Each structure stands twice: as C-alpha cells, then as structure tokens.
C-alpha cells in the first residue's frame, strides 16, 4: 500500500475528530501487523471494501474514548447501543471520505459493529494490515486497513 493511500485515511481520521468539540487529535506513524492477531480495543466498526480495492477498513476504540466521543457530539445517551452505533459511523465516515480520492469505485458496505473479542474480525491470513494509531484527548484508538489493489 502506498504512502498516498495511507494518507487518505489519515486525513479522514483528522477530519472526523476535527468536527467534534475536542479538535486536538494526533495520529502516530502507521505500522504493519500480521492478520493472525488483529489489533482491537473494546468496540470496533468494520467496513467491507469492494471494487478495485478489496478488503477491510476498521476503526477500533476503547469504551472510554467512545463515551467521551458521544458526549463531545452532544449525545447524552451513552448506552452501549449508541457506542456501537457511533463506532460504526466513525468507520463509515472515514471510509466514505476516502472516495474523494479513490472515486465511486471504492465501494463500501454498511458497518458491522462488534464489542469485545478481536476474533470476530475476519481478515485474510496471508495479508498484513496497516495500523494507524489515533490519539484523542487521553485515549488511544486505531484505524486498521487491510486492502488489496
């Protein structure tokens, strides 16, 4: 995956958090991991990608970050249902925004959301994923990209 492709998703992350009440977001240097051990926190929103790019993009974050994120967008119902809804929406927004660069052929699914075990994230074992660390307030999260082109 090219540096330019990764930058598209980094821009998506920055753009998302800059529309919250706490705009101070940082991303770390992307790194590669084996798909046999998917990176995940407490909640994960997963987007399937098809077309010239094929694979998965997901956003994963701890419960504390998601709770704070809900509050920061003005939502006072911080139930698990809303956390799952929002983690899917973050993944959808970051992936959808990538179409500004990749075009309409970068086709994305509706989000699949999960709580807990990373075993539910099915990634091709023969591929590796790029992890983009996300730092927002005192929390860490990640955008994980596993795409073939």
């Amino acid at each position: 995956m090219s540096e330019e492709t990764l930058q598209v998703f980094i821009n998506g992350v920055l753009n998302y958090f800059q529309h919250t009440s706490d705009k101070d977001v940082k991303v770390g240097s992307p790194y590669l991991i084996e798909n046999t051990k998917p990176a995940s926190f407490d909640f994960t929103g997963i987007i399937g990608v098809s077309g010239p790019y094929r694979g998965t993009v997901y956003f994963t974050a701890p419960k504390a970050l998601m709770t704070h994120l809900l509050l920061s967008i003005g939502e006072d119902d911080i139930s698990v249902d809303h956390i799952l809804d929002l983690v899917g929406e973050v993944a959808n927004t970051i992936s959808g925004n990538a179409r500004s660069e990749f075009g309409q052929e970068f086709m994305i699914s509706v989000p699949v959301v999960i709580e807990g075990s990373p075993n539910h994230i099915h990634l091709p074992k023969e591929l590796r994923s790029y992890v983009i660390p996300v730092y927002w307030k005192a929390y860490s999260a990640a955008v994980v990209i596993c795409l073939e082109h």
Partner: protein
Amino acid sequence: MSAPLKMLIVDDSNVIRRKIDRGHDRSLFTVVGSANNGADAVAKFKELDPDVVTMDITMPNMDGIECIGRLMEIKPQAKILVISALSDKATGIEALERGAQGFLCKPFDDEKLSNALKELVENSHV
C-alpha cells in the same frame, strides 16, 4: 412568519438521526419522523408528507440514491438534503440527478447542518 417546514430524517445511525434532530433550526423545521433505511423512508414519507428530507446514502434495505428517486415520484416538490460520508463527485452528481437539491458531507457540525438546511429552502419554493 410562516409555519416551520415538516422534516423527515433518514439515516441508519440513530446517533446521527438524533444529532440532526438536535442541530437543526427549530424556527424553520419541525421533525415529523425518522427512518433508518430507504424502504422505511418511503413508507414514512407517504404517511407523514414532509416538505424536507435529510437523506443518508449508505443504508440497508434500499440505499439513499434509490430512495431519492422513489420520493421524487411521490412528491417532486419535496426538498432533499443528502447527508453522507460518500465524498466523491460522482455520488453527489447522481444524487442531484435523482432529485436531491443539496449535499452535506459527513462529518458535520451543527453550524454546517443549519447552513445547509437554510440554503436548501432559501434556494427553493417549498
């Protein structure tokens, strides 16, 4: 001063539906209902007869693009603001060709939402 316009909110995310409900200008719009997919939106549209619709694109059970076409067949004078993360030009053009009058890209804040909705009705004759 004219009565607030009736608005239907369509998005598969409850968090986003609630955000739109909180963020719009209440002197201009009254939310009469919401739907979490395109098929539900068509049913609610027939039932509630809104003047304005906010429309997501990526949804299960009929996406927003198809839904816009269905709504335009029912009430061509309705005003539709697409609110979507799909930021490519082709999707925006397709939505406009189906009958939408405005496009707001996610993520958005209350100010952007209010401005987009205000522009939608100022540029039309709802």
